[in-house]
């Protein structure tokens, strides 16, 4: 038995009643404050209690919920049912797992594909089956991302990846084909920084991934059936050591710096302090607002080494395993990709690179950058591993990369990160 939200709230209510009882016999006016406090606590928690009146309840983060709400309600009307789209602003994944386990979670949840491993090991989601027509309309990376253990656990609708933004006002080399070319051009630009790529003091394995893969590093090996093998950790293996050496070189040259962080990377670019930026579609709005003349292109790799493959992160709809309206939930998620009605409505309110081929085609003329990102994600990126073991990678790999950029010995640092990851997975 555990202390969950429901039981805790019930006890707040009892506590309030009791303090009222105590105050009545004591002859004071204290109960008002006690009750007020507890109702307030309950009201603020209402947002993450499932809407009891709707036939279909969907949870999402704020941006996605707001872009989905109208389309979902319209869909519901066509079915003759009521739909509630609720915002869960913080810790959506763990809130969902806990609520679902307690039987008061939503029917559908909208989240990143790399949650899948954790959702499956917690028995939180049910598999989905898409028709051949719907499946063939989704880019391969989208399908791969939501497939776990040979089963599709989510319906993908958008995909994000990293690209290279170039400030045309600062350099004429707008599509460098190698990192070396980029560095030379960046240094020639004479700006404060050459390349704005977040490293941070504690590392950022997500943004470093293109460089890591270009050097030859990999995270997990693959089984015969194409699934990831958590026993085969690539950190500390030969390829990763080559990557580490290259990353160390960039650190020594001052191209990569731990002082460039997720907080300042985009602003360095928009303030004209760096001609190159490695970031995702989320940076577009700031860059456009800053009035920068920019291009978006593929992140180059090191000369003579592999191509740089950043992560692709897919947003997907999941069907809760213990939702009260599982039938509507299944129907809704399959309808999301049946045509472009819902995904287009969502795009208009919250622009994210689509996974549907026909929607991408539809957006080509008006949103070329979004289409570029969608293309880069499907052709030059790998889905983030969604196996639960991935959570052991982020910390050690990121910290090792940050230390290498800061001047630590590349080989020993990367090897020790690999040892740490392997022992964590084994334990």
């Amino acid at each position: 038995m555990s202390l969950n939200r429901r039981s805790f709230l019930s006890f707040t209510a009892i506590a309030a009643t009791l303090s009222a009882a105590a105050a009545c016999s004591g002859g004071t006016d204290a109960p008002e404050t006690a009750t007020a406090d507890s109702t307030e606590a309950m009201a603020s928690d209402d947002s993450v209690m499932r809407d009891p009146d709707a036939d279909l309840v969907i949870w999402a983060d704020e941006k996605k919920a707001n872009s989905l709400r109208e389309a979902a309600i319209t869909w519901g009307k066509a079915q003759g049912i009521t739909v509630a789209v609720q915002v869960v602003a913080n810790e959506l994944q763990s809130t969902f797992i806990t609520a679902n386990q307690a039987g008061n979670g939503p029917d559908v949840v909208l989240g990143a594909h790399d949650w899948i491993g954790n959702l499956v090991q917690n028995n939180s989601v049910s598999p989905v089956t898409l028709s051949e027509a719907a499946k063939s309309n989704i880019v391969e990376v989208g399908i791969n991302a939501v497939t776990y253990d040979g089963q599709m656990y989510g319906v993908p609708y958008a995909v994000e990846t990293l690209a290279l933004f170039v400030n045309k006002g600062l350099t004429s080399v707008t599509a460098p084909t190698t990192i070396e070319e980029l560095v030379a051009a960046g240094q020639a630009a004479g700006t404060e920084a050459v390349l704005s790529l977040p490293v941070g003091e504690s590392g950022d394995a997500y943004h470093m991934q293109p460089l890591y893969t270009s050097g030859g590093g990999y995270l997990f090996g693959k089984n015969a059936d194409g699934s990831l093998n958590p026993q085969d950790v690539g950190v500390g293996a030969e390829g990763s050591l080559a990557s580490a050496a290259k990353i160390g070189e960039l650190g020594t040259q001052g191209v990569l710096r731990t002082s460039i962080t997720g907080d300042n990377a985009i602003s360095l670019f928009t303030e004209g302090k760096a001609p190159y930026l490695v970031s995702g579609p989320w940076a577009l709005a700031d860059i456009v607002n800053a009035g920068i003349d920019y291009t978006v292109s593929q992140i180059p790799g090191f000369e003579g080494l592999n191509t740089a493959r950043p992560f692709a992160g897919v947003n997907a709809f999941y069907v809760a395993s213990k939702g009260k309206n599982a039938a509507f939930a299944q129907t809704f998620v399959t309808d999301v990709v049946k045509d472009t009605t819902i995904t287009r409505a969502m795009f208009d309110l919250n622009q994210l690179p689509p996974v549907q081929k026909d929607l991408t085609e539809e957006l080509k003329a008006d949103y070329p950058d979004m289409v570029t990102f969608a293309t880069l994600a499907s052709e030059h990126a790998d889905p983030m591993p969604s196996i639960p073991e991935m959570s052991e990678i982020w910390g050690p790999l990121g910290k090792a990369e940050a230390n290498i950029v800061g001047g630590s010995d590349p080989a020993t640092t990367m090897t020790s990160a690999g040892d740490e990851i392997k022992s964590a997975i084994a334990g």
Partner: protein
Amino acid sequence: MSSALTNVSGPTERTSTIRSLLGRVLVLGAALSVAIYLVPLLIQFQMWMWLAVVVLATLAIFALYSTKRFVPAKYVFPGTFFLAVFLIIPIVLTVQTAFTNFGDGFRGTKEEAITAITNNSVQQTADSPIYNLTVATTGSPDEGPYSLFLVNPETNEVLYGADGETVRKAKPGDVTVTDGFVTAAEGYSILTPQEVNSNYEAISALTLSVSENSAIKVQGVRNAFEGTKTMVYDEATDTITDTATGNTYTVQKIGKSEYFVDANGNRLAQSWLQNVGLANFKELFTNTSLLKQLGGAFTWTLVFAGGSMLLTFLVGYFLALTLNDDRVRGKKFYRSFLLLPYAVPGFISLLIWSNFYNRDFGLINNALHLSINWLGDPTWAKVAVLLTNTWMGFPYMFIVCTGALQSISGDLKEAARIDGANGWQTTTRITTPLLLVSVAPLLVSTFAFNFNNFNAIQLLTRGGPFGEGEYIRGGTDILISVVYRIAFGGSGADYGFASAVSVILFVITGALAAIQFRATRALEDVN
């Protein structure tokens, strides 16, 4: 309502007014209705401990508040109840959790895990279509029996069947097909989507075979497909067999938890909540590198909490003394100005400070023309943390000291002056000891607060910098941020292990607090 207090002549002569009686009935009624509402829910969720708490609390309320007796208990009960519900029970639950593997992957029961494994293993048969589904019944929508009518969207062929049957083709005359769905069938009534949804558990459990090893699986209110369960559980041997590969998974212990594991050592992702005994504590005490890191974090936690306490006090007291001097003009202005750091939400100011410390682009280095590696060097990072925490915390000390100073009688200072003491002597020998009497307990609580000041670390440095080969504890990590990283930073949430660490921390903090309060007791002799 106020029978207990208004009558001063003693409990035996109290009289009940209509108001007090009505109030009592209302309150007892409310308590009873809450209990009536909660008891079935708690039984449904099998929360036995909370059930006991509710029942006992309700009984106690009735026993205590329905009569005029037990006056002391009437006052003691609410406090005791809150203590039990909000303090003791969480501690008991934490200790309980410390003996389990509760966390990501270990939340449900073994049955739930088996159901999930087998249900999730349904694979769509290759080249089979996704049928358009209509659910119909010869009985009632809520009771069944249900039949499924399936339209193959490619061939428009209609199949149908009931639970346990093999699907067969429907005669074109018996069914009406509109827009690819069966909308009417002879002798059947069609269920609406709502009816399908509310009876989905029964409907999705129907087994309609197509061939020997594949069956129809309902998916949502409109679709069904042909598929097979590849994972089959055998209760007699407690094993799961993958019918596609022939692999058999048996229950085996990996680490501290049991999983279904095949002959090659591959385990299924789903495990379940288990009692692991002392495994969490064993893990903590046998992992020497972890203990060493925790030891290092402990030392820095003491320095951080003590340093923050001292620095904020010194700065706050100094400013309070300065602004307490009558010769200072514009006191109000200065005072409100000094309170600013207190007014800004800590969450925001910590993130802003974190940017100020940036080596290459931060305000501090740029403005002072320094190149200090504030957040990258362990020592400088510690300095940065202390500086920021002082900035965040001195206004509190400033308020407290200003208040305490104003309550110290001016006569004492005057007497000291007449005795020939100078300003410094008056401050150090008279004012400060008097002030410490009232401020010392607050210093202790400041220390205790900073001992667990997770935000100050997480938002400013995230525990970093992490030296080479350090992954658990960074240069500025205090105990609580290390525990957070252990519990939530690695393989998802591991509440069991985190609880075990918390129990140990609880003991340490308790011991420290006891020592400190003993020390502050000495100050009470001053007055």
